């Protein structure tokens, strides 16, 4: 069903550069910044692209407006990381009517009509949570442990999915009990505040599961301030694998990280090139996310890009 993309090639008259409109969610985190940079670095003029980039400031309405603008401007391809899963049908239909292929990055949409977009590239949040859960279950869940969870922004897809994945994975292990779960809004500062509260309220925490590195790093600060050793007295597991997180992992303060790769730019460029040359692509491309333990982190830390 992604084959109809060729139709869009029609109006590429201007010097051969492929015009692409990319609407980013916003710039809410270091992860996002790395993602943006990767895309801007991949879709350059030298590589044969004419990239129009816009930042929606975490607002769906801005994003819809941007996509409509791209349609009005007559770009050849539209790519975007949807702020939310729902609510894209109308604008995607407009793009389809205008014959512009759409590529989703990082986050999926829940449209039933999958012909509205060519492909999705990104990570599977549920899977990420599940991998963390599996690791905890196997490595720590051999004896009774108390886990506290630092959730992402309430209601956001990564927060919901990472929670679900984790819960699914540990469901079979009676040793693991999640004693508290609170939102830290994906930020370091709130991760720290919430962890401070946890440390006051629950004297016997064994594991912290943070939905992203930043909250995990905040929690580490709180653990240290309480006179305990992160990674030893209290184990820390997180998702993302940004540089700071990997550094802490290598330093032994975090125990396990499941990567969520932000470097989608090259993949995106390749997909567009393929489509442009008349090829077809898979409707769903899940990026290869790695997972690191402390030894693994030390090995790769030196040449991490982000």
């Amino acid at each position, binding site marked *: 069903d992604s084959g109809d993309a060729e139709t869009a090639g029609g109006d590429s008259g201007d010097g051969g550069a492929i015009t692409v409109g990319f609407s980013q969610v916003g*710039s*809410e*985190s*270091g992860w*996002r*910044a*790395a993602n*943006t*940079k990767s895309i801007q670095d991949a879709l350059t003029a030298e590589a044969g692209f004419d990239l129009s980039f816009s930042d929606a400031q975490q607002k769906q309405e801005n994003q819809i407006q941007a996509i409509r603008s791209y349609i009005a401007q007559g770009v050849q391809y539209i790519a975007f990381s949807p702020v939310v899963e729902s609510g894209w049908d109308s604008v995607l239909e407009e793009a389809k009517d205008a014959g512009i292929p759409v590529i989703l990055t990082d986050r999926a949409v829940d449209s039933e009509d999958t012909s509205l977009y060519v492909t999705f590239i990104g990570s599977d949040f549920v899977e990420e949570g599940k991998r963390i859960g599996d690791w905890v279950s196997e490595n720590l869940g051999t004896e009774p442990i108390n886990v506290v969870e630092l*959730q992402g922004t*309430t*209601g956001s897809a990564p927060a919901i999915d990472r929670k679900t994945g984790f819960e699914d994975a540990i469901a079979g292990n009676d040793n693991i009990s999640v004693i*508290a*779960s*609170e*939102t830290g*809004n*994906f*930020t*370091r*500062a*709130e991760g*720290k*505040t*919430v962890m*401070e*509260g*946890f440390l*006051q*309220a*629950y*004297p016997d925490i064994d594991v912290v599961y943070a939905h992203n590195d*930043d909250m995990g*790093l*905040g929690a580490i*600060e709180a653990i240290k*301030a*309480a*006179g305990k050793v992160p990674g030893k007295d209290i184990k820390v597991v997180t998702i993302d694998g*940004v540089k*700071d997180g990997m*550094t802490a992992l290598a330093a032994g303060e975090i125990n396990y990280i499941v990567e969520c790769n932000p470097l989608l730019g090259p993949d995106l460029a390749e997909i567009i090139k393929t489509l442009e040359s008349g090829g077809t692509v898979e409707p769903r491309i899940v990026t290869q996310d790695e997972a690191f333990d402390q030894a693994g982190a030390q090995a790769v830390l030196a040449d991490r890009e982000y």
Partner: protein
Amino acid sequence: MSSVMSSAGTVARHRLFWPVVALAVLLLACVLKSNTFLNITVLEGHLYGGPIDIVRRSSVLLLVALGMTLVIATRGIDLSVGAVMAIAGAVALSQIAASDNPESLTVVLSAIGSAVLVCLMIGVFNGFLVAVVGIQPIIATLVIMTAGRGIAMLITGGQITTVTSAPYKTIATGYWLGLPVAALIAGFFFVAMALITRRTALGVLIESVGINPVASRLAGVRARTIIWTVYILCAFFACVAGFIRSSDIMAADANNAGLFIELDAILAVVIGGTSLAGGKFSLVGTLVGVLVITTLTFSVTILGIPANAVSLFKALVVILVCLLQSPVVRQKMRKRRAAPVGTAPAPVEVPA
């Protein structure tokens, strides 16, 4: 007997009565949930425990609310404080990160110095828009609220700048005489401002400008200078708050540092009894407001309120405090206590 009754009545009638009660109830709830909550222990030579955490946590909001109180007293409002916090952290930490020796005190001090300078300039800019150009404060400060985070990100390149620097770390997590340095800093500025506004004439001049700017100008008060000054002060306090926030996590998070703190600060100011219409202000009230809000946030974790219900819980507490504190309800209470008095005139109060 009756004198006891009446003095209890006086206490209950005080503007800060209900906020203090709310504070007490929240603390009590925390203690019931976690009975070691109020215990203060000595850990590695400093004090550790729930109350200490709350005090240390309060420092950021207290600083911001301190400046906000002054701005609000002049009938203004400053939405840019969160962005200023982000810029302060971004400037200071990128400078430290770029230096050869992040651990050196001089590097840290010069980084702090340049951040203060940048923030003061923002204060000057806000004050200029409000006092000289005459733009409505909410819009004037909306400019920096929007652009400021962009500037902070420009400085950090959109990344979260992380550093290790012991002197800088001391700001938020250090202890002096067993007490958190952050709280000492906030406390110092709080006491200093309380003294400056009440021991000099600044307080009364600010109030006068807030109540009736035209009359104040005709009375010879430098209304423009005063308005300008409070915006500069507000930016300065936000800057210090930004240091504490960034030192707390040893990272400059341009996106999230101080996000929505302006709303919490305004809420604290109002719970403390300062009217958004300008005029009479109370710094002690602001302190109580700050403690209520910090404790509220803290208690969410302690009490284990589900993430989905946090907003609702906060809303209910805020609504309850505001309702109990409202002039009408207080009037009703007074009516029940004392002989009826005319209803129309607002109660006369002397600020703290």
